[in-house]
């Protein structure tokens, strides 16, 4: 009980309180404590990456061994990991202990396979936005109708043809962004800040323990 509940709660209180104090103390001692804590965090993350690696390989290996749907993709994932690892260790002939080479197989695969695949995923957003917008802009309610009109004004106002039609469009688009949109955004941000304060207090004072897996005592 002490190790699973009391100790984590005490640590949460201690480090939470220290983090709050450091925010108001610019002294070099406070900065050193902050640096030290972020160093611990980085070390923790370095070890956690081994867990992550094990998890991702285990996930794909289980899929292959159980012949789950799409298991061939898992095979591709594991093969990609092995090939990339080989080229990272090979390091363009310099070996694993030299600084990472700026050319060679790893860099080539990263640039021409990984970056290209990521860009493809990102570019798909355009089509997803179109399909999501289509569903949203079907004016089946007054809210959706208002959204549709605002979106049309904004889209027309943000392209050169909008100004060519009338100065109203760019001006209305700017107003929409700077007044109702900004007001809503700031309202959300105020709520988020208060929510963050409340959540932090609940954790620091040990009221919120869901992240430890439990709730009430």
């Amino acid at each position: 009980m002490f190790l699973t509940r009391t100790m984590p709660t005490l640590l949460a209180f201690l480090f939470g309180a220290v983090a709050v104090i450091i925010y108001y103390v610019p002294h070099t001692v406070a900065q050193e404590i902050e640096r030290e804590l972020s160093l611990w965090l980085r070390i923790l993350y370095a070890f956690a990456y081994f867990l992550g690696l094990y998890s991702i390989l285990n996930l794909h290996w289980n899929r292959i061994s159980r012949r789950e749907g799409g298991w061939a993709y898992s095979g591709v994932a594991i093969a990609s990991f092995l090939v990339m690892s080989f080229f990272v260790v090979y390091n363009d002939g310099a070996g694993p202990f030299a600084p990472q080479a700026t050319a060679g197989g790893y860099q080539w695969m990263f640039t021409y396979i990984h970056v290209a695949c990521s860009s493809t995923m990102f570019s798909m957003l355009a089509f997803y936005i179109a399909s999501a917008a289509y569903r949203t802009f079907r004016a089946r309610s007054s809210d959706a109708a208002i959204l549709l009109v605002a979106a049309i004004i904004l889209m027309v106002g943000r392209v050169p043809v909008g100004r060519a039609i009338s100065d109203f469009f760019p001006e209305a688009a700017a107003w929409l962004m700077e007044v109702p949109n900004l007001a809503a955004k700031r309202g959300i941000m105020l709520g988020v800040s208060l929510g963050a304060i409340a959540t932090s207090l609940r954790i620091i004072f040990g009221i919120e323990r869901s992240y430890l897996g439990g709730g009430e005592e």
Partner: protein
Amino acid sequence: MRWRASRVVTLLGVAVLFPVVLSAQAPPRAIAFDTPNDAGGSITVTWPRVDGNGTTNHLVYVATAEAGPYNLAAEVKGKGAVLSDDPGNYGRGEEQDATHFVHVSDFTTADGRQPLDNDVTYFIRVAASKDGMEARGAITSAMAEANFINWAKTNNFVIGTALSLIILVSISLARRKEMFIRRIAGLEAIDEALGRATEMGKAVLFVHGLREMDKISTIAAVNILGQVARKTAQYDTLLKVASYDPVVMSVSQETVKEAYLEVGRPDAYNEDHIFVAGTDQFSYAAAVEGMMVRERPAAHIMMGYFYAESLLLAETGSQTGAIQIAGTDAFTQLPFFVTTCDYTLMGEELYAASAYLSREPRMLGSLKGQDIGKAFLIAALLFGSLLATAGMPFITHALAAH
């Protein structure tokens, strides 16, 4: 004619002697002091404002002995900054508007730039420079020190403390009397989503967002996961958690394990169901999308901070026909979730979710405190807007971040 000649001679004399005049009339009266609210290693140097077209530059020299040698530390071109440009440190007012300043943290030596040390007296003089001529002012001295308190954040401290007290008092009051909390549709729908998954015999997929464990939105997401895991354990529904970050995965594994233990279903817990799907944004998105399409979970719960992958995940999920509940404090991604999900928790609702789901009085009390704090902020906004409109920006200045 003689009169004109004398005027020409006078003008010529002014032109020739201008640097001398500058040197005689414009040596800046500089004041130096430790830069307030910093970690040390910096001295603030001020001098009266120079009006005109800003063609006079100011050179700040630093020496370790009064006799010199004086090394160039900073060059302020033209008019430079005035104290009122940094109200957090120097305040606002006519005097601040009429005083230039520069922060000096190092100076040039033959060996390069040398930083100022703390607790060492430095001698400083400021020179006005125009057309290659310099008018050096009197020598002043100051010492850089590390400050223990950042007084510029006093307003932040006062407001933060007041809001914290309101929340803590509400938590304390919540133990004694029942509090009304408005219904949040998105959170009510979690039960519906889990029930649907149970009836269909399909899994529930929980997605954390892309931030690390030290971010408050991720902590809020893990708190919600704890509540969801209790219910999936009670309903005997398969819960899958796709993490982006290995630390988040480890914490999630412990959270889910504890939740299953708490409801007496440790046998139903499977560590492999909480996994890292990818540690790169779009690789992660592709992996989770693949899972949505192939495994067809009955419910997708997306809580945390999301970036561009939000629409990729939510739109794919929407096409699979799963019930989708999202919650994020990333206001840029909210429109995507609103258009593609069945229920969306906006901003603060993400932080309220865990307390709302647990129905624990103290947690609910914190929500009440949050609402009271919001009411105060709204009142301050309205009052401040009225005063600012009337030309009295007192509240605007008091609430400014420094």
